[in-house]
């Protein structure tokens, strides 16, 4: 049994910020990350972030990773366990982990912050298992982490921020994007992103869906069709695209089964994109000393995930006895930052979701 004070599960934007904030308060922090390195999805975000200065706006995601890691490295009370997956959270507070494939052991922390992020939703259509059909995350990983072109001609499915951003990055990598389609009648992502791609000549086809993928050993063709306001395909509106890649970017859903396993009360909230933990304003779930932050508590932009991490980190540290003198000041600052990020039309939707889970 390994001893720890504050265990943070997940080393993405929320987890890293939670670790920084808790370490600054003086807690002994241990981060568990299943990948070889920290950063989560930040390491493939080559575009500049939105938000304001405090959330590193206008800095590229790839560089925010280093900013956060440098901050983290300035504390000597942080332990980082990479290539380590959490496999169980038990009612006595014990968390069991596996390092690589064979080293299984237990950790007994005083408090836990679950910052496990989200996973991509899938889309059902005939032959959606053909090679060449990827999730947007995989395309970004291939391209922006490993420098591998996923193909030559891409049909992007989904005009949310991820679909728009990945389309732009594909074009930067010299890959042709033939079109971006979305079932919704309006573009879901930020319109500045949409305009950026549109002026490169890429059509954005709203109210469209994938009818089927065609190919023998790999994707050769995509057939799409227009849909009516009940999302039913309109016959005779089919279009064909000769593509070797279809990139599916139809949204994310919170990845947090661990919280359900631990007995935290969960609730389905459509505005937050799936099942999310019921929590208090300190991001503590209904199980005492189990906190959550970032997309695991509801899908939002990474800027919000970072601030949630900072907030959960300082609150979890305070809960186990590390309450700094400037606690109120810091907490209020994080709360205000989140309010600012969520005060516009996009945030209204998120706030309507959060209202349903905060007790």
């Amino acid at each position, binding site marked *: 049994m390994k001893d720890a004070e504050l265990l943070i599960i997940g080393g993405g934007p929320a987890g890293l910020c939670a670790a920084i904030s808790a370490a600054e308060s003086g807690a002994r922090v241990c981060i568990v990350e299943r990948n070889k390195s920290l950063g989560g999805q930040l390491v493939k975000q080559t*575009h*500049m*972030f*939105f*938000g*304001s*200065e405090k959330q590193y*706006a*206008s*800095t*590229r995601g790839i560089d925010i990773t280093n900013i956060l890691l440098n901050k983290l490295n300035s504390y000597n009370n942080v332990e980082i366990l990479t290539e380590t997956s959490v496999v169980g959270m038990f009612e006595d507070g014990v968390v069991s982990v596996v390092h690589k494939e064979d080293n299984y052991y237990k950790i007994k922390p005083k408090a836990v912050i679950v910052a496990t992020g989200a996973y991509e939703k899938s889309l059902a259509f005939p032959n959606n298992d053909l090679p060449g059909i990827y999730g947007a995350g995989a395309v970004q990983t291939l391209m922006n982490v490993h420098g591998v072109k996923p193909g030559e001609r891409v049909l992007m499915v989904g005009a949310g921020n991820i679909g728009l951003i990945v389309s732009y990055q594909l*074009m*930067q990598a*010299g890959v042709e994007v033939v079109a971006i389609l979305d079932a919704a*009648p*309006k*573009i879901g992502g*930020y*319109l*500045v*992103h*949409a*305009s*950026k*791609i*549109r*002026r*490169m*000549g*890429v059509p*954005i086809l*709203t109210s469209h869906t994938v009818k089927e993928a065609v190919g023998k050993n790999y994707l050769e063709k995509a057939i799409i069709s227009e849909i009516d306001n009940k999302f039913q395909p309109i016959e005779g509106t089919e279009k064909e695209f000769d593509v070797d890649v279809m990139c599916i970017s139809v949204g994310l859903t919170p990845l947090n089964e661990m919280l359900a396993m631990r007995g935290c009360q969960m609730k389905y909230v459509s505005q937050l994109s799936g099942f999310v933990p019921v929590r208090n304003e300190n991001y503590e779930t209904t199980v005492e000393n189990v906190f959550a932050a970032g997309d695991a508590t509801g899908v939002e*932009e990474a*800027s919000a995930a970072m601030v949630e991490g900072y907030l959960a980190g300082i609150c979890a540290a305070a809960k186990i006895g590390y309450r700094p003198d400037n606690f109120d000041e810091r907490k209020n600052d994080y709360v205000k930052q989140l309010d*600012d*990020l*969520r*005060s*516009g*039309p*996009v*945030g209204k939707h998120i706030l309507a979701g959060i209202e349903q889970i905060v007790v």
Partner: protein
Amino acid sequence: MFEKTGIPSKEMIMEKFPSIDRINKGPVAVVECYKEIPCNPCQTACKFDAIKVGEDINNIPALNSDNCTGCAICLSKCPGLAIMVVDGSKSETTVQIKIPYEFLPLPNAGDIVKGLDREGKYIADVKVINVLNPKSFDRTPIITLEADREFLYDIRNIKVVS
């Protein structure tokens, strides 16, 4: 339509452009941010107090064209690449247009490239006057173009043909 296609209408574009008198006086920014999103680096980047987002970072940025010097610092700082600079002071027949451009190959000064509109359609050939790519622009180079005056409101992108 804009929310379906990503292409702003002529009226939307005209609303964002400073007056032609101001443009003829010298370089000035055009901030094509049409929808409220939580974002304010343009305001943070401006040393001349010419772009104001305000207390609520979801506000649409407002340009004070009297304060704007057309320095183009905000072009590389806007995460949406939504800002350009136009300058009608250099000649009576042409205008200079500065745009952010994050693609390879970068053009060179003196090159003739294809000028595209907000739909990506070819409008006219334009001349590259200058390419700035200092470290402070953080990999968002700024290209200065010279175009016929009649295309002032149309040119928003380029295609570099090698």
